[in-house]
């Protein structure tokens, strides 16, 4: 069996201006340790930035914290990073949010965060509950070429 290298990082960040950059840099560092390509790293960094901004701008949480977990694993045939971005806010309806989304390529000033996350990551799953918080789970895979 091919050995697996696994890295885990947990962060609790205050909802302050530009904190998404701290999250993105931490994720980028973990991805670099796993040997992922710059393209995958950049895509993940942009996705986690949008997830943190959504939490900061829309969650309405009382604790003003964003909770992040990154788990990365590298095997012989490639690597994978799972990212969870959680807030303890009011939750939202993902289907309703998607219904307000402009068509891809249509110029629109706001409401693109979730669309960008889905475009930059391979898998995205949203768990959200009215007044029970939101967790966005995102996955990036990379096969060794």
């Amino acid at each position, binding site marked *: 069996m091919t050995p697996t290298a696994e890295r885990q990082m947990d962060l609790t960040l205050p909802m*302050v*201006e*530009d*904190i*998404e*950059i*701290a999250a*993105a840099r931490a994720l980028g560092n973990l991805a670099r340790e796993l040997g992922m390509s710059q*393209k995958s790293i*950049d*895509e993940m*960094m*942009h996705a986690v*930035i*949008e997830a943190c*901004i959504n939490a900061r701008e829309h969650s309405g949480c009382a604790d003003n914290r964003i909770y992040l977990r990154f788990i990365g694993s590298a095997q012989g045939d490639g690597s994978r990073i799972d990212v969870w971005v959680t807030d303890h806010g009011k939750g939202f309806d993902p289907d309703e949010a998607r219904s307000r989304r*402009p068509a*891809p*390529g*249509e*110029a*629109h*000033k*706001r409401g*693109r*965060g979730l*669309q*960008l996350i889905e*475009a*930059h990551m391979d898998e995205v799953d949203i768990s959200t509950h009215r007044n029970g918080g939101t967790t966005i789970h995102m996955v990036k895979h990379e096969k060794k070429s």
Partner: protein
Amino acid sequence: MTEELKVAVDRKSNGAILYTRGYINNVGGEEIANRAYELMDEGVRTLLLNLRETKIVNSIGISILIEIIEKMMEKGGRIAFCCLTPVIHKTFQIMGLANYAKIYDSEEAAAAELAL
């Protein structure tokens, strides 16, 4: 934590090139907008944004770039971008910005076509 964006302007005979360095978020987008609107007020109608030293953007910053493009289009001018990372290029396409502003691989190619 701050990630202040720096903007440098190079005036040309037929327009201007704006060089950005750093994160284009709401604050960075407003900084670009301020410089772009100053140039528009001075009569500049061709602007090239060179993002060679910008590696990260967010959706709020891009929404401000779209506002700048709209204002320039109202004045009959044009805005173009060059030297984007592949992920920023992809993000611009998703956000619709690429439909209203040309994107060039290099400053030389942009300057030649825009006659800057």
